[in-house]
């Protein structure tokens, strides 16, 4: 029966291999799950799930698969039957409560419980209806309904309660992003080569030279391996980007770390790139895009960060810049195209959640630059693209904009 659970896990994108599943079977044959659901929950997670980011998906799969098993296992057990039948336990109840108890018989209770369980979508505390903790609903744990039935809880923490709590939600990879994680993602952005001062002992060469030197030791040094990737980072600041400022600054912190890239330059723009980008976020020290292009090797990697959201006119109309003094004949999209044409590999990272992308100017810009969401997964995918090339993700239907884009 557990094979289904394996596929449930895999359907939830927990990459469990046959290898691990066999180990789990071996462990269960040894009795390591202590013949309990709780034991199995921990055993299976220990063996099959190797990443805290996947714990939440595991919890989800576990809940989905064992929900019914659990309801069965609870089975409104003999203990509950006895408890309900045993008047001594009920001595503490008021007449009113006894009345309530008589009204709610076991069959009805079970029916109701299963109905609620099906309806209920989330954790619930307090209140008088849903299954949860506290409160006066007949279902749940640590509550006060005299005829209630306990779901989960009890001595220690049951696996269902643990899974139900979904404590590992915050570790999901598609959500979190701190400097350290960005650091790790950016580590993939490298091409190693030997350059610079000779400070590392080259053993093979030393042995070779020494032998040729008739045994007289001749020590050879070489430069250590360094990252040769050069990066130009363009960041959108202000306006609609304000909510994402913290995230962008984390990306900047990680990217600008000394020694990370052979050459790292960063500039700011607002809304869209027009004829200039700026060295400072106050837009005082302008650098014409033409100069930027002239001073950049085509092998440098161009990374843009922005929400790519603006009024279509700001992007598509020549002179559409919201600043009068920058009005030029070329439209925003034209400037972006120039950038994209100069750099052999470029990527656009967008902090806006992907579900808001379709139907906006993001579609248009994504047809010029490969666009990825600014999440750990998106960052990793863009880094892979920058290093190895490949397919750019398709965003919406830029074709509907084709006419406005002049081609």
């Amino acid at each position, binding site marked *: 029966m557990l094979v289904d659970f394996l596929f449930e896990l895999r359907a939830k994108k927990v990459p469990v291999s046959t290898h691990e599943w066999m180990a789990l079977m071996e462990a269960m044959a040894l009795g390591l799950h202590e013949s309990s659901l709780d034991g199995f929950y921990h055993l299976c997670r220990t063996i099959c799930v190797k990443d805290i980011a996947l714990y939440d998906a595991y919890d989800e799969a576990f809940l989905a698969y064992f929900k019914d098993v659990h309801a069965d296992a609870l089975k409104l057990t003999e203990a509950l039957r006895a408890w309900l039948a045993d008047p001594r336990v009920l001595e503490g109840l008021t007449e009113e409560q006894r009345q309530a108890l008589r009204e709610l018989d076991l069959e009805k209770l079970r029916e109701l419980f299963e109905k609620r369980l099906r309806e209920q979508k989330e954790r619930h505390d307090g209140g008088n209806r849903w299954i949860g903790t506290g409160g006066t609903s007949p279902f749940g744990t640590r509550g006060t309904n005299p005829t209630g039935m306990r779901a989960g809880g009890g001595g220690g923490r049951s696996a269902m309660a643990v899974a139900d709590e979904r404590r590992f939600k915050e570790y999901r990879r598609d959500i979190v992003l701190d400097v350290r994680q960005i650091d790790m993602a950016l580590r993939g952005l490298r091409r190693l080569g030997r350059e610079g001062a000779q400070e590392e002992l080259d053993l093979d060469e030393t*042995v070779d030279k020494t032998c040729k030197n008739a045994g007289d030791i001749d020590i050879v040094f070489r430069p250590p391996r360094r990252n040769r990737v050069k990066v130009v980072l363009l960041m959108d600041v202000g306006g609609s980007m304000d909510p994402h400022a913290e995230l962008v600054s984390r990306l900047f912190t990680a990217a600008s770390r000394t020694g990370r890239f052979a050459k790292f330059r960063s500039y700011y723009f607002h809304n869209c790139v027009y004829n200039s980008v700026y060295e400072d976020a106050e837009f005082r020290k302008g650098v014409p895009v033409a100069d930027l292009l002239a001073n950049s090797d085509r092998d440098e990697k161009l990374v843009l960060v922005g929400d790519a959201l603006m009024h279509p006119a700001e992007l598509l109309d020549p002179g559409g810049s919201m600043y009068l003094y920058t009005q030029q004949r070329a439209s925003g999209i034209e400037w972006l195209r120039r950038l994209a044409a100069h750099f052999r590999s470029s990527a656009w990272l967008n902090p806006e959640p992907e579900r808001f992308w379709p139907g906006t100017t993001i579609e248009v810009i994504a047809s010029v630059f490969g666009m990825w969401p600014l999440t750990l997964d998106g960052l990793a995918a863009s880094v892979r693209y920058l290093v190895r090339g490949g397919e750019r993700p398709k965003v919406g239907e830029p074709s509907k904009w084709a006419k406005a884009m002049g081609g």
Partner: protein
Amino acid sequence: MSDADQQFDQFRGTSSYIASEELRHAVNVAVALARPLLVRGEPGTGKTLLAENLARSLGLSLIRWHVKSTTKAKDGLYVYDTVARLHDSRFGGDGHDVRDIARYIKLGPLGEALAAPSRVVLLIDEIDKADIEFPNDLLLELDAMRFRIDETGREVVAAERPVVVITSNNEKELPDAFLRRCVFHYIQFPTRELMTEIVRVHHPDITDRVLDNALEMFFGLRATPKLRKKPSTSELIDWICALRKANVDLSRVSGGIPFLGTLLKTEHDVELVSKRAKA
């Protein structure tokens, strides 16, 4: 309790190391299945100490391998000291026979663990510090528990599979092929109850009131939003140590947390906390 149970339930923490139920279970699964145990968790939750205490409670000796950014997988097996051999061949090394290559082979920590005559505990500490490919280079050796010294042709085979504990700071994705062979446990930050036990192990004579006050402040501090680095268990223990040395009574302290520097390690965090304290 049957024999099988006793065999399985080998690790229960030690007098100086309190392990959560889940951690004990994970360790015992790893030992029973003879697979490496990969431990992750926030810094300062006792990942490294786990190996030491596991070795102590199993009565085995511990071999440590602290991985650094420059560590190569092969260094863990053995190092062939060519420079020493060159030197000896040129200048004569105290009458040693330079032709005997084995003299210049030095076993690394993993090599030692495999060559040991009896079972040992091997700690591979902070495996994520090394290059991305590092764990992949260890696959075969960890699987087969044997390796060959190319220079001498000697085959080293483990007499008994060592218990391998691998720690990682959750910094980098480890390769799938490597993960598949491990048993994994993520050390959750201790709950208040567990923390009380842990502190008591380190400071057995602390009074309830002092401990309560300290934990109140500590968990309050951890709950501060936007902290760059939350204080950890080891920092809490250091902090209590400092408080006791200086005879500070927390219930009478006003205006900020004493010895904040033992708990918070970045300017940003210190500033943030002091701002909130004023507000």
